[in-house]
């Protein structure tokens, strides 16, 4: 299965001998690997959104004087606003790139389960967003002089990003086929993802303040609820979005 990551040639997963779950995962991974590979070669989305995220943090640091106590109070909000806005830029790219290059038709015609296409696009977007965060979090720690080396924080960031990216991938597919698509993605994604972001901000604050795990349970429960519901619904709803994407 992991071969797909290294193999640079195009593979047609449906024709491979595997079947069932293994084939589904191979197909999804092939699509995710394609997106990651194209990002590694072009370095468009991650570098672009990282610069954007940094600018957001600079403006907030200027506005709130994010040091000491303030870093723990306002810092989580600043961090998640930066992640959400920059992440949204990357998500907008997920399908827009396919459309520009005419890859959308190919993707739609690929003889694989549509859930696998969704999972593949989503995993690709998730990996790119996590890459963005891998750069952003140390910079946040450096600027605000807080420690980010807590397992609680990592779990909150992972779970928050997962929910955000899952529903973001679905809306990205919807936005790309509608009029004024740059406006569409934030309009759809922000209201629906805000509860996820609020729980993530709450969790990040507790983690930065070094609270015990028991304090982290309510925000983590909420994040888990969103992740499970979005992961369950989105691949299924994606089928209906894809039906309307072709034209």
């Amino acid at each position, binding site marked *: 299965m992991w071969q797909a990551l290294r193999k640079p040639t195009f593979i047609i997963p449906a024709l491979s001998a595997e079947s069932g779950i293994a084939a589904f995962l191979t197909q999804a991974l092939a699509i995710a690997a394609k997106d990651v590979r194209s990002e590694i070669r072009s370095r468009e989305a991650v570098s672009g959104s990282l610069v954007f995220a940094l600018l957001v943090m600079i403006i907030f640091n200027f506005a709130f004087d994010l040091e000491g106590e303030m870093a723990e109070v306002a810092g989580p909000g600043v961090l998640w606003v930066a992640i959400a806005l920059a992440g949204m830029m990357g998500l907008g790219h997920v399908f827009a790139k396919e459309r520009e290059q005419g890859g959308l038709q190919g993707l739609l015609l690929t003889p694989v389960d549509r859930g696998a296409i969704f999972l593949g696009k989503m995993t690709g977007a998730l990996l790119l967003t996590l890459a963005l965060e891998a750069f952003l979090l140390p910079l946040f720690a450096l600027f605000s002089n807080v420690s980010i080396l807590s397992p609680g924080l990592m779990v909150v960031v992972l779970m928050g990003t997962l929910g955000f990216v899952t529903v973001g991938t679905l809306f990205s597919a*919807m936005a790309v086929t*509608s009029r004024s698509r740059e406006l569409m993605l934030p309009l759809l994604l922000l209201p*629906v993802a805000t509860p996820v972001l609020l729980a993530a901000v709450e969790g990040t604050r507790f983690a930065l303040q070094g609270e015990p795990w028991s304090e982290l349970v*309510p925000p983590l429960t909420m994040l888990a609820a*969103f992740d499970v519901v*979005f992961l369950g619904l989105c691949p299924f*709803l994606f089928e209906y979005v894809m*039906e309307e994407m072709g034209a």
Partner: protein
Amino acid sequence: MIAFELPAVTPARAKTGLAILALTLLLAALVAAFVIAPTEREMGDVQRIFYFHVASAWTAFLAFFVVFLASIAYLRTKTPRWDIVAASAAEIGIVFTTLTLISGSVWARSAWGTWWTWEPRLTTTLMLWLIYVSYLILREMVEEPDRRAAFAAVFGIIGFVDVPIVFMSIRWWRTLHPQVVGSEGFNMEGAMLPALFLSVIAFTVVFLHILILRAGLERSQHEMMELRRRARWIQEGGG
């Protein structure tokens, strides 16, 4: 020719009957809330807003539930009827969410001394309002009818996922918002119950009435578009 299935017309008599029923129930709710229900010991008369606040909130959730169900029905059947019902219910849901926010705000000014506070229940309700405003903007932005209906249905289903979390948030976070209906039943004076139930029922009937009217209007619009399309087709010498 594209077959175009339209929602069944509700007979005029049924519409009038429902309107009269709604009006009667609303009047009864007013009497129950202002005359029968006792004055609350600490908050005084301001507490009476509670009956209409809860009724609006209930109706808003009901409307969004209708959006959710109609969205599922649309994706399953692909009949425009369900799309029309979903769009109409979303609009009405926004109106009742607005009423909930305003009535809550007026009450909070007296009880908490502020019009607004960033408390979980208030924040999530405001977000719910924003979700369905986005839903309507989405409908404006997609022109092709089948695509608009499908995208709106997908968003209507995802958007509704937030509703249970609005309910849950009050238990997950420490909150200022009163919990009147808890696990131990109703946390209020027995004489207050008729006012609450009557206003909830009245608002529900009002909602049904507006929903039927609004869906009928939308249906007429669809019909007109279809007639125009046919007229153009005939003018252009088709068939």
